[in-house]
Protein backbone atom coordinates (compact mmCIF):
# COMPACT_ATOMS: atom_id res chain seq x y z
CA UNK A 1 0.00 0.00 0.00
CA UNK A 2 1.24 3.45 -0.84
CA UNK A 3 1.50 5.54 2.28
CA UNK A 4 1.34 9.23 1.49
CA UNK A 5 3.52 11.22 3.84
CA UNK A 6 1.69 13.75 5.99
CA UNK A 7 1.83 17.10 4.27
CA UNK A 8 0.13 19.88 6.21
CA UNK A 9 0.30 22.36 3.32
CA UNK A 10 -1.51 19.91 1.07
CA UNK A 11 -4.09 19.26 3.81
CA UNK A 12 -4.69 22.99 4.25
CA UNK A 13 -5.70 23.23 0.60
CA UNK A 14 -8.62 20.89 1.42
CA UNK A 15 -10.11 23.49 3.80
CA UNK A 16 -11.48 26.51 1.91
CA UNK A 17 -12.01 28.59 5.06
CA UNK A 18 -8.30 28.58 5.91
CA UNK A 19 -7.81 30.97 2.99
CA UNK A 20 -10.28 33.43 4.46
CA UNK A 21 -9.18 36.92 5.36
CA UNK A 22 -11.04 38.02 8.50
CA UNK A 23 -10.36 41.58 7.38
CA UNK A 24 -8.38 42.92 4.44
CA UNK A 25 -4.88 41.48 4.50
CA UNK A 26 -5.42 39.46 7.70
CA UNK A 27 -5.75 35.71 7.17
CA UNK A 28 -7.49 33.59 9.75
CA UNK A 29 -5.21 31.63 12.08
CA UNK A 30 -7.70 29.08 13.32
CA UNK A 31 -6.68 27.75 16.74
CA UNK A 32 -10.16 26.84 17.98
CA UNK A 33 -10.67 23.32 16.65
CA UNK A 34 -11.53 21.95 20.08
CA UNK A 35 -14.70 24.07 19.94
CA UNK A 36 -15.40 23.01 16.37
CA UNK A 37 -13.20 21.88 13.53
CA UNK A 38 -13.14 23.37 10.06
CA UNK A 39 -14.65 21.38 7.19
CA UNK A 40 -12.85 20.06 4.14
CA UNK A 41 -14.18 20.62 0.63
CA UNK A 42 -15.16 16.93 0.38
CA UNK A 43 -17.59 17.26 3.32
CA UNK A 44 -19.07 20.52 2.09
CA UNK A 45 -19.45 19.05 -1.39
CA UNK A 46 -20.99 15.78 -0.16
CA UNK A 47 -23.76 17.73 1.60
CA UNK A 48 -24.14 20.09 -1.32
CA UNK A 49 -24.45 17.15 -3.73
CA UNK A 50 -27.00 15.49 -1.47
CA UNK A 51 -29.25 18.55 -1.59
CA UNK A 52 -28.70 19.08 -5.32
CA UNK A 53 -29.18 15.44 -6.40
CA UNK A 54 -30.60 13.10 -3.79
CA UNK A 55 -32.66 15.04 -1.26
CA UNK A 56 -35.72 13.17 0.01
CA UNK A 57 -36.97 11.96 3.34
CA UNK A 58 -35.64 8.56 4.33
CA UNK A 59 -37.39 5.22 4.93
CA UNK A 60 -40.88 4.27 3.68
CA UNK A 61 -40.58 6.19 0.40
CA UNK A 62 -40.18 3.86 -2.56
CA UNK A 63 -39.29 6.47 -5.12
CA UNK A 64 -35.76 6.76 -6.42
CA UNK A 65 -34.78 9.79 -4.39
CA UNK A 66 -36.10 8.28 -1.15
CA UNK A 67 -34.22 5.05 -1.83
CA UNK A 68 -31.06 6.98 -2.56
CA UNK A 69 -31.35 9.19 0.50
CA UNK A 70 -32.04 6.18 2.74
CA UNK A 71 -29.05 4.33 1.33
CA UNK A 72 -26.78 7.34 1.87
CA UNK A 73 -28.03 7.79 5.45
CA UNK A 74 -27.33 4.14 6.23
CA UNK A 75 -24.03 4.00 4.34
CA UNK A 76 -22.75 6.84 6.50
CA UNK A 77 -23.69 4.83 9.58
CA UNK A 78 -21.62 1.91 8.29
CA UNK A 79 -18.64 4.22 7.74
CA UNK A 80 -18.91 5.67 11.24
CA UNK A 81 -19.17 2.19 12.75
CA UNK A 82 -16.02 1.08 10.92
CA UNK A 83 -14.20 4.25 11.96
CA UNK A 84 -14.51 3.35 15.65
CA UNK A 85 -14.42 -0.42 14.97
CA UNK A 86 -17.97 -1.02 16.20
CA UNK A 87 -18.99 -4.66 15.61
CA UNK A 88 -22.05 -3.56 13.63
CA UNK A 89 -23.62 -0.43 12.19
CA UNK A 90 -26.86 -0.76 14.17
CA UNK A 91 -24.84 0.08 17.27
CA UNK A 92 -24.41 3.64 15.97
CA UNK A 93 -27.33 5.84 17.00
CA UNK A 94 -27.49 9.21 15.29
CA UNK A 95 -28.04 12.07 17.73
CA UNK A 96 -27.62 15.84 17.51
CA UNK A 97 -24.27 15.87 19.30
CA UNK A 98 -22.28 14.45 22.21
CA UNK A 99 -24.54 16.20 24.70
CA UNK A 100 -27.63 14.52 23.30
CA UNK A 101 -25.85 11.15 23.20
CA UNK A 102 -25.08 11.37 26.92
CA UNK A 103 -28.61 12.59 27.67
CA UNK A 104 -30.01 9.66 25.70
CA UNK A 105 -28.28 7.21 28.06
CA UNK A 106 -29.26 9.30 31.08
CA UNK A 107 -32.94 9.38 30.07
CA UNK A 108 -33.24 5.75 28.97
CA UNK A 109 -30.73 3.33 30.47
CA UNK A 110 -30.13 5.31 33.66
CA UNK A 111 -33.78 6.06 34.42
CA UNK A 112 -34.70 2.41 33.78
CA UNK A 113 -31.87 0.99 35.86
CA UNK A 114 -30.79 3.39 38.59
CA UNK A 115 -32.54 4.10 41.84
CA UNK A 116 -32.07 6.30 44.85
CA UNK A 117 -28.55 6.24 46.35
CA UNK A 118 -27.04 4.29 43.43
CA UNK A 119 -23.55 5.64 42.76
CA UNK A 120 -22.36 7.28 39.51
CA UNK A 121 -18.66 8.12 39.25
CA UNK A 122 -17.68 11.17 37.17
CA UNK A 123 -14.52 13.27 37.15
CA UNK A 124 -13.64 16.85 38.05
CA UNK A 125 -12.51 17.54 34.48
CA UNK A 126 -15.87 16.88 32.81
CA UNK A 127 -17.48 19.16 30.29
CA UNK A 128 -20.91 20.38 31.43
CA UNK A 129 -22.42 17.87 28.98
CA UNK A 130 -21.24 15.02 31.20
CA UNK A 131 -22.15 16.75 34.46
CA UNK A 132 -25.55 18.38 34.12
CA UNK A 133 -27.48 15.31 32.81
CA UNK A 134 -26.32 13.41 35.91
CA UNK A 135 -27.08 16.32 38.24
CA UNK A 136 -30.60 16.37 36.78
CA UNK A 137 -30.88 12.63 37.40
CA UNK A 138 -29.55 13.09 40.94
CA UNK A 139 -32.19 15.76 41.63
CA UNK A 140 -34.93 13.53 40.23
CA UNK A 141 -33.90 10.11 41.48
CA UNK A 142 -31.54 10.76 44.36
CA UNK A 143 -28.63 8.93 42.71
CA UNK A 144 -25.27 9.75 44.27
CA UNK A 145 -22.49 11.47 42.31
CA UNK A 146 -18.81 11.12 43.20
CA UNK A 147 -15.91 12.67 41.34
CA UNK A 148 -12.42 11.45 40.53
CA UNK A 149 -10.20 14.42 41.47
CA UNK A 150 -7.79 16.11 39.10
CA UNK A 151 -4.20 16.19 40.39
CA UNK A 152 -1.96 19.27 40.27
CA UNK A 153 -0.34 17.99 37.09
CA UNK A 154 -3.72 17.73 35.34
CA UNK A 155 -4.24 13.97 35.56
CA UNK A 156 -7.01 11.93 37.15
CA UNK A 157 -6.21 10.59 40.61
CA UNK A 158 -6.58 6.88 39.92
CA UNK A 159 -6.00 5.93 43.58
CA UNK A 160 -9.16 7.80 44.53
CA UNK A 161 -10.88 6.17 41.54
CA UNK A 162 -10.00 2.72 42.87
CA UNK A 163 -11.36 3.55 46.30
CA UNK A 164 -14.59 4.95 44.77
CA UNK A 165 -14.96 1.71 42.82
CA UNK A 166 -15.10 -0.20 46.10
CA UNK A 167 -18.42 1.58 46.86
CA UNK A 168 -20.32 -0.52 44.31
CA UNK A 169 -20.89 2.08 41.56
CA UNK A 170 -23.45 1.43 38.84
CA UNK A 171 -21.93 3.74 36.23
CA UNK A 172 -18.62 5.43 35.45
CA UNK A 173 -18.84 8.24 32.89
CA UNK A 174 -15.78 10.25 31.90
CA UNK A 175 -14.05 12.25 29.20
CA UNK A 176 -11.50 10.40 27.09
CA UNK A 177 -9.70 13.68 26.54
CA UNK A 178 -10.19 16.90 28.51
CA UNK A 179 -11.32 19.86 26.40
CA UNK A 180 -9.44 22.23 28.72
CA UNK A 181 -6.33 20.41 29.91
CA UNK A 182 -5.93 18.18 26.88
CA UNK A 183 -5.29 15.26 29.25
CA UNK A 184 -5.76 11.90 27.55
CA UNK A 185 -7.20 9.67 30.24
CA UNK A 186 -6.25 5.97 30.44
CA UNK A 187 -9.66 4.90 29.19
CA UNK A 188 -8.97 1.18 28.63
CA UNK A 189 -7.62 0.77 32.16
CA UNK A 190 -10.41 2.83 33.72
CA UNK A 191 -13.08 0.85 31.85
CA UNK A 192 -11.51 -2.47 32.86
CA UNK A 193 -11.51 -1.39 36.52
CA UNK A 194 -15.13 -0.19 36.28
CA UNK A 195 -16.21 -3.54 34.83
CA UNK A 196 -14.37 -5.42 37.59
CA UNK A 197 -16.39 -3.35 40.06
CA UNK A 198 -19.61 -4.26 38.23
CA UNK A 199 -20.25 -0.80 36.74
CA UNK A 200 -21.13 0.17 33.19
CA UNK A 201 -19.11 2.85 31.41
CA UNK A 202 -19.78 5.86 29.19
CA UNK A 203 -16.89 7.45 27.36
CA UNK A 204 -17.29 11.10 26.36
CA UNK A 205 -15.19 10.85 23.23
CA UNK A 206 -16.02 14.30 21.82
CA UNK A 207 -12.35 15.27 21.95
CA UNK A 208 -10.74 11.89 21.32
CA UNK A 209 -12.49 10.40 18.28
CA UNK A 210 -11.50 13.42 16.11
CA UNK A 211 -7.85 13.17 17.08
CA UNK A 212 -6.92 9.59 18.04
CA UNK A 213 -7.55 6.11 16.74
CA UNK A 214 -10.38 4.97 19.02
CA UNK A 215 -11.43 1.31 18.97
CA UNK A 216 -14.58 0.60 20.97
CA UNK A 217 -13.91 -3.14 21.02
CA UNK A 218 -10.38 -2.75 22.36
CA UNK A 219 -11.66 -0.30 24.95
CA UNK A 220 -14.60 -2.63 25.73
CA UNK A 221 -16.61 0.51 26.50
CA UNK A 222 -20.37 0.16 26.99
CA UNK A 223 -21.43 3.53 25.57
CA UNK A 224 -19.46 6.16 23.69
CA UNK A 225 -20.59 9.65 22.67
CA UNK A 226 -19.09 11.92 20.01
CA UNK A 227 -19.96 14.77 17.61
CA UNK A 228 -19.40 15.13 13.87
CA UNK A 229 -18.58 18.84 13.97
CA UNK A 230 -15.39 18.35 15.95
CA UNK A 231 -14.08 15.84 13.38
CA UNK A 232 -14.38 17.76 10.10
CA UNK A 233 -18.11 17.03 9.81
CA UNK A 234 -21.18 19.26 10.03
CA UNK A 235 -22.90 20.59 13.14
CA UNK A 236 -26.27 19.14 14.13
CA UNK A 237 -25.26 15.47 14.12
CA UNK A 238 -23.44 13.23 16.55
CA UNK A 239 -23.43 9.59 17.51
CA UNK A 240 -23.95 7.28 20.41
CA UNK A 241 -22.25 3.91 20.26
CA UNK A 242 -23.60 1.20 22.55
CA UNK A 243 -23.24 -2.51 23.13
CA UNK A 244 -26.07 -4.28 21.33
CA UNK A 245 -27.60 -6.04 24.34
CA UNK A 246 -27.72 -2.78 26.29
CA UNK A 247 -29.26 -0.79 23.45
CA UNK A 248 -31.85 -3.48 22.83
CA UNK A 249 -32.89 -3.60 26.49
CA UNK A 250 -33.17 0.18 26.83
CA UNK A 251 -36.53 1.92 26.59
CA UNK A 252 -36.89 4.39 23.70
CA UNK A 253 -35.80 8.02 24.07
CA UNK A 254 -37.98 10.46 22.12
CA UNK A 255 -41.31 9.24 20.80
CA UNK A 256 -42.56 9.87 17.28
CA UNK A 257 -42.19 8.76 13.72
CA UNK A 258 -39.56 6.23 12.65
CA UNK A 259 -39.00 4.79 16.12
CA UNK A 260 -42.07 2.53 16.10
CA UNK A 261 -42.98 -0.92 14.90
CA UNK A 262 -46.70 -0.35 15.32
CA UNK A 263 -48.91 2.46 16.62
CA UNK A 264 -52.48 2.19 17.93
CA UNK A 265 -54.50 5.11 19.21
CA UNK A 266 -53.53 4.37 22.81
CA UNK A 267 -50.30 2.42 22.48
CA UNK A 268 -47.21 1.75 20.42
CA UNK A 269 -44.49 -0.85 20.09
CA UNK A 270 -40.98 0.48 19.53
CA UNK A 271 -38.95 -0.79 16.62
CA UNK A 272 -35.44 -2.28 16.73
CA UNK A 273 -32.14 -0.44 17.11
CA UNK A 274 -30.93 1.94 15.83
CA UNK A 275 -34.28 3.40 14.66
CA UNK A 276 -35.76 2.94 18.14
CA UNK A 277 -33.69 5.96 19.22
CA UNK A 278 -34.11 8.08 16.09
CA UNK A 279 -37.60 9.58 16.30
CA UNK A 280 -38.60 12.09 13.65
CA UNK A 281 -36.89 13.14 10.44
CA UNK A 282 -33.19 13.10 11.25
CA UNK A 283 -30.31 15.24 10.00
CA UNK A 284 -30.01 13.42 6.66
CA UNK A 285 -27.68 15.74 4.75
CA UNK A 286 -25.60 15.98 7.92
CA UNK A 287 -25.30 12.20 8.11
CA UNK A 288 -23.92 12.27 4.57
CA UNK A 289 -21.45 14.95 5.68
CA UNK A 290 -20.56 12.89 8.76
CA UNK A 291 -19.77 9.92 6.50
CA UNK A 292 -17.67 12.11 4.22
CA UNK A 293 -15.77 13.44 7.26
CA UNK A 294 -14.94 9.92 8.37
CA UNK A 295 -13.78 9.10 4.82
CA UNK A 296 -11.61 12.19 4.83
CA UNK A 297 -9.97 11.47 8.18
CA UNK A 298 -9.42 7.83 7.20
CA UNK A 299 -7.78 8.90 3.94
CA UNK A 300 -5.22 10.90 5.94
CA UNK A 301 -4.87 8.30 8.70
CA UNK A 302 -5.65 8.80 12.38
CA UNK A 303 -2.13 7.78 13.47
CA UNK A 304 -0.67 10.43 11.16
CA UNK A 305 -3.11 13.04 12.45
CA UNK A 306 -2.25 12.20 16.08
CA UNK A 307 1.46 12.37 15.33
CA UNK A 308 1.10 15.78 13.68
CA UNK A 309 -0.93 17.16 16.57
CA UNK A 310 1.61 15.80 19.01
CA UNK A 311 4.36 17.66 17.17
CA UNK A 312 2.22 20.79 17.29
CA UNK A 313 1.52 20.65 21.02
CA UNK A 314 5.15 19.92 21.83
CA UNK A 315 6.23 22.95 19.84
CA UNK A 316 3.41 25.12 21.21
CA UNK A 317 4.19 24.28 24.85
CA UNK A 318 7.88 24.93 24.24
CA UNK A 319 7.20 28.35 22.70
CA UNK A 320 4.46 29.38 25.14
CA UNK A 321 6.53 28.43 28.17
CA UNK A 322 9.16 30.98 27.08
CA UNK A 323 6.68 33.82 27.63
CA UNK A 324 7.07 35.47 31.05
CA UNK A 325 3.81 35.55 33.01
CA UNK A 326 2.16 32.82 30.95
CA UNK A 327 0.91 29.76 32.83
CA UNK A 328 -0.21 26.62 30.97
CA UNK A 329 -2.64 24.20 32.62
CA UNK A 330 -2.63 20.45 32.14
CA UNK A 331 -0.05 17.70 31.86
CA UNK A 332 3.15 17.55 29.83
CA UNK A 333 2.94 17.07 26.06
CA UNK A 334 3.37 13.28 26.24
CA UNK A 335 0.12 12.92 28.19
CA UNK A 336 -2.09 15.29 26.25
CA UNK A 337 -3.65 16.11 22.91
CA UNK A 338 -3.43 19.36 20.97
CA UNK A 339 -4.92 21.70 23.57
CA UNK A 340 -3.09 24.52 25.36
CA UNK A 341 -5.14 26.43 27.95
CA UNK A 342 -3.37 29.24 29.72
CA UNK A 343 -3.60 32.39 31.78
CA UNK A 344 -1.39 35.37 31.03
CA UNK A 345 -0.16 37.99 33.43
CA UNK A 346 -3.52 38.59 35.11
CA UNK A 347 -5.01 39.80 31.83
CA UNK A 348 -8.53 38.52 31.31
CA UNK A 349 -8.78 35.79 28.62
CA UNK A 350 -11.43 37.83 26.79
CA UNK A 351 -8.96 40.64 26.41
CA UNK A 352 -6.23 38.24 25.30
CA UNK A 353 -8.57 36.67 22.73
CA UNK A 354 -9.83 40.04 21.52
CA UNK A 355 -6.37 41.40 20.88
CA UNK A 356 -5.27 38.15 19.19
CA UNK A 357 -8.28 38.53 16.90
CA UNK A 358 -6.74 41.70 15.49
CA UNK A 359 -4.17 39.43 13.85
CA UNK A 360 -6.84 36.98 12.76
CA UNK A 361 -5.90 34.52 15.51
CA UNK A 362 -8.97 32.60 16.65
CA UNK A 363 -8.69 31.22 20.18
CA UNK A 364 -11.37 30.58 22.77
CA UNK A 365 -11.70 32.42 26.07
CA UNK A 366 -13.79 31.45 29.06
CA UNK A 367 -14.40 28.36 31.14
CA UNK A 368 -14.95 26.18 28.04
CA UNK A 369 -18.07 24.58 29.55
CA UNK A 370 -15.97 23.19 32.38
CA UNK A 371 -16.71 25.59 35.21
CA UNK A 372 -16.05 23.14 38.08
CA UNK A 373 -12.63 22.36 36.62
CA UNK A 374 -11.76 26.06 36.49
CA UNK A 375 -12.92 26.42 40.08
CA UNK A 376 -10.60 23.57 41.02
CA UNK A 377 -7.75 25.31 39.20
CA UNK A 378 -8.65 28.48 41.11
CA UNK A 379 -9.19 30.65 38.03
CA UNK A 380 -12.37 32.06 36.47
CA UNK A 381 -11.32 31.50 32.88
CA UNK A 382 -8.51 30.53 30.54
CA UNK A 383 -7.48 31.29 26.98
CA UNK A 384 -7.37 28.12 24.92
CA UNK A 385 -5.46 27.45 21.71
CA UNK A 386 -6.13 24.10 20.07
CA UNK A 387 -4.66 22.30 17.11
CA UNK A 388 -5.82 19.92 14.44
CA UNK A 389 -4.49 18.24 11.31
CA UNK A 390 -4.31 21.57 9.46
CA UNK A 391 -2.43 23.52 12.16
CA UNK A 392 1.11 24.72 11.49
CA UNK A 393 4.12 25.88 13.45
CA UNK A 394 3.78 29.25 11.72
CA UNK A 395 0.38 29.55 13.40
CA UNK A 396 1.96 28.80 16.77
CA UNK A 397 4.52 31.52 16.06
CA UNK A 398 1.70 33.93 15.20
CA UNK A 399 0.05 33.09 18.51
CA UNK A 400 3.25 33.74 20.45
CA UNK A 401 3.81 37.07 18.68
CA UNK A 402 0.17 37.98 19.33
CA UNK A 403 0.56 37.32 23.06
CA UNK A 404 3.50 39.72 23.17
CA UNK A 405 1.21 42.32 21.54
CA UNK A 406 -1.35 41.73 24.29
CA UNK A 407 1.39 42.53 26.76
CA UNK A 408 2.11 45.79 24.94
CA UNK A 409 -1.55 46.91 24.99
CA UNK A 410 -1.90 46.26 28.71
CA UNK A 411 1.77 47.09 29.35
Amino acid at each position, binding site marked *: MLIMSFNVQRIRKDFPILDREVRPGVKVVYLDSTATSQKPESVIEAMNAFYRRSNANIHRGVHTLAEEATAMYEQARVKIAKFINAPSAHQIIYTRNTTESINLVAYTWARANLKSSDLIILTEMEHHSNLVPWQMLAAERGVRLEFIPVTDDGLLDLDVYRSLLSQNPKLVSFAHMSNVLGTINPAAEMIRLAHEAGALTILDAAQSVPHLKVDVQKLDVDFMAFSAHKMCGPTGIGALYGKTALLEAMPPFLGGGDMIKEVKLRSFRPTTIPSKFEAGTPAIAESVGFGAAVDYLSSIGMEEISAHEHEMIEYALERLEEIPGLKIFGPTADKKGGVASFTFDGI*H*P*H*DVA*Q*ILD*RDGIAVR*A*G*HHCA*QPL*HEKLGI*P*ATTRASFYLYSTKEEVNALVNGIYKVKR*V*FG
Partner: protein
Amino acid sequence: MDDLYREVIIEHYKNPSYRGHLDPHDISFADNNPLCGDHIQIDLRVDKDGKVTEARFDGHGCAISQASADLLLESIIGKSLDEVKALNKQHILDLLGIDLGPVRLKCALLSLKVLKAGVYGLGEASDQLVE
Protein backbone atom coordinates in the same frame (compact mmCIF):
# COMPACT_ATOMS: atom_id res chain seq x y z
CA MET B 1 -4.37 51.16 18.73
CA ASP B 2 -7.43 48.97 18.62
CA ASP B 3 -10.75 50.76 18.93
CA LEU B 4 -11.84 48.29 21.55
CA TYR B 5 -8.91 49.16 23.72
CA ARG B 6 -9.19 52.93 23.56
CA GLU B 7 -7.12 54.70 26.16
CA VAL B 8 -10.19 55.57 28.20
CA ILE B 9 -11.06 51.89 28.57
CA ILE B 10 -7.56 50.78 29.50
CA GLU B 11 -7.33 53.71 31.92
CA HIS B 12 -10.61 52.90 33.71
CA TYR B 13 -9.65 49.22 33.74
CA LYS B 14 -6.24 49.78 35.25
CA ASN B 15 -7.07 52.67 37.56
CA PRO B 16 -10.74 52.48 38.42
CA SER B 17 -12.10 55.29 40.62
CA TYR B 18 -15.09 53.37 41.89
CA ARG B 19 -13.60 49.99 42.80
CA GLY B 20 -14.37 48.83 46.33
CA HIS B 21 -17.24 48.23 48.72
CA LEU B 22 -19.58 50.44 50.70
CA ASP B 23 -20.38 49.42 54.24
CA PRO B 24 -23.04 50.31 55.20
CA HIS B 25 -24.89 50.55 51.91
CA ASP B 26 -28.51 51.00 50.86
CA ILE B 27 -28.39 48.70 47.84
CA SER B 28 -26.04 45.83 47.03
CA PHE B 29 -26.25 43.24 44.30
CA ALA B 30 -23.90 40.81 42.55
CA ASP B 31 -24.10 38.55 39.52
CA ASN B 32 -22.03 36.64 36.96
CA ASN B 33 -21.79 36.50 33.22
CA PRO B 34 -22.25 32.75 32.77
CA LEU B 35 -20.43 32.79 29.44
CA CYS B 36 -17.09 33.90 30.80
CA GLY B 37 -17.39 33.80 34.58
CA ASP B 38 -17.08 37.58 34.91
CA HIS B 39 -18.38 38.73 38.27
CA ILE B 40 -19.51 42.15 39.43
CA GLN B 41 -20.83 43.39 42.75
CA ILE B 42 -22.22 46.89 43.08
CA ASP B 43 -22.91 48.77 46.35
CA LEU B 44 -24.87 52.03 46.41
CA ARG B 45 -25.70 54.71 48.95
CA VAL B 46 -28.86 56.67 48.27
CA ASP B 47 -29.98 59.89 50.01
CA LYS B 48 -33.46 60.62 51.33
CA ASP B 49 -34.48 62.09 47.97
CA GLY B 50 -33.64 58.84 46.22
CA LYS B 51 -30.45 60.14 44.60
CA VAL B 52 -27.27 58.05 44.35
CA THR B 53 -24.61 59.65 46.55
CA GLU B 54 -21.93 56.98 46.47
CA ALA B 55 -21.27 53.88 44.38
CA ARG B 56 -18.63 51.16 44.34
CA PHE B 57 -18.09 47.97 42.36
CA ASP B 58 -15.91 44.95 42.85
CA GLY B 59 -15.35 41.82 40.84
CA HIS B 60 -13.23 40.32 38.14
CA GLY B 61 -13.51 40.25 34.40
CA CYS B 62 -12.20 41.58 31.16
CA ALA B 63 -11.18 45.17 30.52
CA ILE B 64 -14.51 45.87 28.83
CA SER B 65 -16.65 44.64 31.73
CA GLN B 66 -14.57 46.30 34.44
CA ALA B 67 -14.07 49.60 32.61
CA SER B 68 -17.77 49.83 31.80
CA ALA B 69 -18.60 49.24 35.48
CA ASP B 70 -16.31 52.11 36.49
CA LEU B 71 -17.68 54.43 33.81
CA LEU B 72 -21.25 53.47 34.67
CA LEU B 73 -20.87 54.24 38.38
CA GLU B 74 -19.20 57.54 37.57
CA SER B 75 -22.21 58.41 35.41
CA ILE B 76 -24.88 57.72 38.03
CA ILE B 77 -23.60 59.77 40.94
CA GLY B 78 -26.29 62.37 41.65
CA LYS B 79 -28.88 60.56 39.53
CA SER B 80 -32.20 59.46 41.00
CA LEU B 81 -33.05 55.75 41.15
CA ASP B 82 -35.77 56.39 38.57
CA GLU B 83 -33.16 57.81 36.23
CA VAL B 84 -30.98 54.75 36.88
CA LYS B 85 -33.91 52.49 36.04
CA ALA B 86 -34.25 54.22 32.68
CA LEU B 87 -30.65 53.50 31.62
CA ASN B 88 -30.19 51.02 28.80
CA LYS B 89 -27.66 49.49 26.44
CA GLN B 90 -27.11 52.74 24.57
CA HIS B 91 -25.95 54.48 27.73
CA ILE B 92 -23.09 51.97 28.10
CA LEU B 93 -22.17 52.15 24.42
CA ASP B 94 -22.07 55.94 24.68
CA LEU B 95 -19.83 55.75 27.73
CA LEU B 96 -17.44 53.31 26.04
CA GLY B 97 -17.57 55.12 22.72
CA ILE B 98 -17.23 51.90 20.75
CA ASP B 99 -19.36 49.39 18.88
CA LEU B 100 -19.47 45.86 20.22
CA GLY B 101 -20.39 42.46 18.78
CA PRO B 102 -22.94 40.27 20.56
CA VAL B 103 -20.40 38.41 22.71
CA ARG B 104 -18.51 41.43 23.98
CA LEU B 105 -21.75 43.34 24.47
CA LYS B 106 -22.60 40.89 27.26
CA CYS B 107 -19.34 41.81 29.01
CA ALA B 108 -20.08 45.51 28.65
CA LEU B 109 -23.65 45.23 29.91
CA LEU B 110 -22.98 43.08 32.97
CA SER B 111 -22.53 46.04 35.30
CA LEU B 112 -25.73 47.73 34.11
CA LYS B 113 -27.68 44.50 34.57
CA VAL B 114 -26.32 44.11 38.10
CA LEU B 115 -27.03 47.76 38.89
CA LYS B 116 -30.61 47.64 37.64
CA ALA B 117 -31.37 44.29 39.30
CA GLY B 118 -30.17 45.85 42.56
CA VAL B 119 -32.18 49.02 42.12
CA TYR B 120 -35.33 47.10 41.21
CA GLY B 121 -34.67 44.65 44.05
CA LEU B 122 -34.75 41.61 41.78
CA GLY B 123 -33.33 38.20 42.53
CA GLU B 124 -31.49 37.85 39.25
CA ALA B 125 -29.92 40.13 36.65
CA SER B 126 -31.58 39.39 33.33
CA ASP B 127 -30.89 40.56 29.79
CA GLN B 128 -34.34 42.15 29.58
CA LEU B 129 -33.21 44.79 32.06
CA VAL B 130 -30.87 46.46 29.59
CA GLU B 131 -32.64 46.17 26.27
